[in-house]
């Protein structure tokens, strides 16, 4: 009834190709953003903001990054954690060396730095593919974490190796990083930042370069034959993906946990982000958000659910059962809906268009 495009005529190709061709979609997104921006910071509790919404936004950005590489370009990567660590440490070094530089510029620069590292570790993808490449990206994961752990230069020779993110202002008077920023300020900053980057990603994947990534994913030899340069396509996917993942890592350390440590970016982080894009939907920006929400919320729901059933249950057991359910869900999703939550959402929209009539 409400969700019907009857009567919405397009008079130009540009209108036909617009981001949200259906008016209800456009207004829905605008409304969602408006609520998230103007209502949520005043209504949500501090717990809600700092342990659900902020990690959700950070993970969404990381998932978008990995989705560009794995979902759009078909290059499986297990090095997400390493690249996130890159972004975090680059941002820390930059902002401590040049405290006067604006923090957004620092984040973007650390993203570009991570992109360079990504290109370096993407070079093997020119020769190898599939799980061979996955193993090669494991090299990135372990090597980068080792570098940040081993050399005191990255932590400015802090004796404990755990350093807190310095407070930085985004506009005068509003601190958005470190422990002294309020959750509300961090949340609004992250929301705007992530929304802009997501818009960028969405437009990138439907542009010429995005189409060349998808051609490589679908069949690289065929893509090469029709004139797509595999080297450029693959390395650019690595670069753009690492850019997003690097910024996500910097945001993780600066806005979410408030401390920069390599331990937070171990191999499990890589798997976590990979699960987000599998569950959310490979090759979908929307799916990245859905997957991130799912993976952030699931442990909380499971935890509380199990504590509700049996209040004496041990923390370790909860963690193990969580692992089991994670694993089972991955297999379940791959079998039942390999395209993830994004596909389910699409199917729901198809149904909604006809509702309440059968056809």
């Amino acid at each position, binding site marked *: 009834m409400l969700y019907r495009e009857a009567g919405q005529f397009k008079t130009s190709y540009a209108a036909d190709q617009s981001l949200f061709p259906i008016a209800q979609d456009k207004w829905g997104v605008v409304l969602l953003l408006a609520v998230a921006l103007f209502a949520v910071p005043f209504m949500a509790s501090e717990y809600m903001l700092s342990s659900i919404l902020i990690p959700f936004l950070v993970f969404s950005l990381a998932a978008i990054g990995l989705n560009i590489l794995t979902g759009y370009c*078909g290059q*499986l990567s297990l090095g997400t954690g390493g690249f996130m660590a890159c972004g975090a440490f680059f941002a820390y070094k930059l902002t401590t060396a040049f405290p006067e530089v604006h923090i957004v510029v620092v984040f973007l620069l650390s993203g570009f730095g991570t992109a360079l590292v990504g290109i370096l570790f993407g*070079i*093997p993808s020119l*020769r*190898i593919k*599939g*799980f*061979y490449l*996955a*193993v*090669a990206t*494991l*090299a990135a994961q*372990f*090597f980068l*974490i*080792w570098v940040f*752990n*081993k*050399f005191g230069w990255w932590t400015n020779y802090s004796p404990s190796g755990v350093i807190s993110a310095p407070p930085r202002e985004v506009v005068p008077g509003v601190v958005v990083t470190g422990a002294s920023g309020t959750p509300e300020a961090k949340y609004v900053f992250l929301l705007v930042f992530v929304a802009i980057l997501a818009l960028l990603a969405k437009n990138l994947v439907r542009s010429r370069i995005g189409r060349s990534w998808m051609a490589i994913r679908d*069949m690289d*030899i*065929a893509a090469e*034959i029709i004139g797509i340069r595999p080297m450029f396509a693959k390395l650019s996917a690595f670069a753009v993906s690492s850019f997003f993942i690097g910024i996500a890592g910097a945001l993780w350390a600066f806005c979410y946990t408030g401390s920069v440590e390599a331990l937070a970016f171990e*191999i499990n982080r890589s*798997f976590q982000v*990979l699960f987000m894009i*599998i569950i959310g939907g490979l090759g979908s920006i929307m799916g990245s958000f859905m997957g991130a929400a799912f993976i952030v919320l699931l442990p909380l729901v499971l935890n509380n659910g199990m504590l509700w059933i049996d209040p004496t249950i041990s923390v*370790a*057991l909860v*963690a*193990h*059962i*969580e*692992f*089991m*359910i*994670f*694993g*089972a*869900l*991955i*297999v379940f999703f*791959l*079998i039942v809906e*390999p395209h993830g939550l994004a596909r389910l959402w699409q199917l729901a929209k198809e149904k909604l268009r006809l509702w309440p009539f059968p056809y």
Partner: protein
Amino acid sequence: MNLRTIAIWAVSVPLVIAALGFFHQALAAAGWIAFFTWPFYFEVILNGLLQGVMYSLVALGFVLIFKASGIFNFAQGSLVLFAALTMVGLIEMGLPWPLAFVATAVVMVGVAIAVERVVLRPLVNQPHIILFMATIGIFYFMDGFGQTLWGSDVKVLDIGIPKDPIFILGGVFEGGLLVQSFDVIAALCGALLVAVLAVFFQYTRIGRALRAVADDHQAALSVGIPLKTIWAIVWSVAGIVALVAGIMWGGKLGVQFTLALIALKALPVLILGGFTSIPGAIIGGLIIGAGEQVAENFVGAAIGGAIQDWFAYMLAMVFLLFRPQGLFGEKIIERV
């Protein structure tokens, strides 16, 4: 492998070892690394090789499944952990270890059949990468399942293998070379396992069927080989290999969560050896084991240590750039 390949290996391996030795000696002479002596160098290599056999044990499980079904089974590591946990759990319940071994083997066969039924059968004909990600799901599930069942404390797995240091080749080097008797026995068990598998593959009816399936699924089906049974068998064999690996690693390090991550080390071994070759898994394991120990003990000590965390992966990555199919893998031919 024909005679020519064997001859090439017989000549090149000692040459590479000697060249690496001289390289490190030169580095020590230049003052880049702290110290170098030839007996120590050989001791490190020997211990690395023994360590490498342990990696090969894990890698074998990967190769078996990859050969038969084209699935890259990421869950092998968690199978190792699960097998070791089950075995320890049964021993703690009072079973003597040979009985516990048999019981665990039965459990692993059960797991294999369950995996085939629940995960692989619905995913037939999916792209390999989907299957790979499904095995990551199995990895997480088995990890959580084993620890839910048996707890997550570090457990001691002792089936009576002596752990004394022994000295060998005392006549050649002053004082001899120090090795752990446990490592030697583990290596012998590994060699035995490989021999048994080789005979199994070469001379039994099931072995022939396995090789046929590995060659071509459709052709195998059309001559009447039951694909599903074969897959269950392969996963069972891989499960039992995981059990042996679990006993060896568990005996060496104690049964704990990190066992599942050690299996990650088997990945570069596979890449080096080629996914489809059992001798490749062994030789890859030896190269990674020895290379890692040499790097850690000589170069690693100079730049801060713990480089064995990533050395194997880097070695594999650089190697892949030059030879994507691995040392013994089949040549990759692609068609549009």
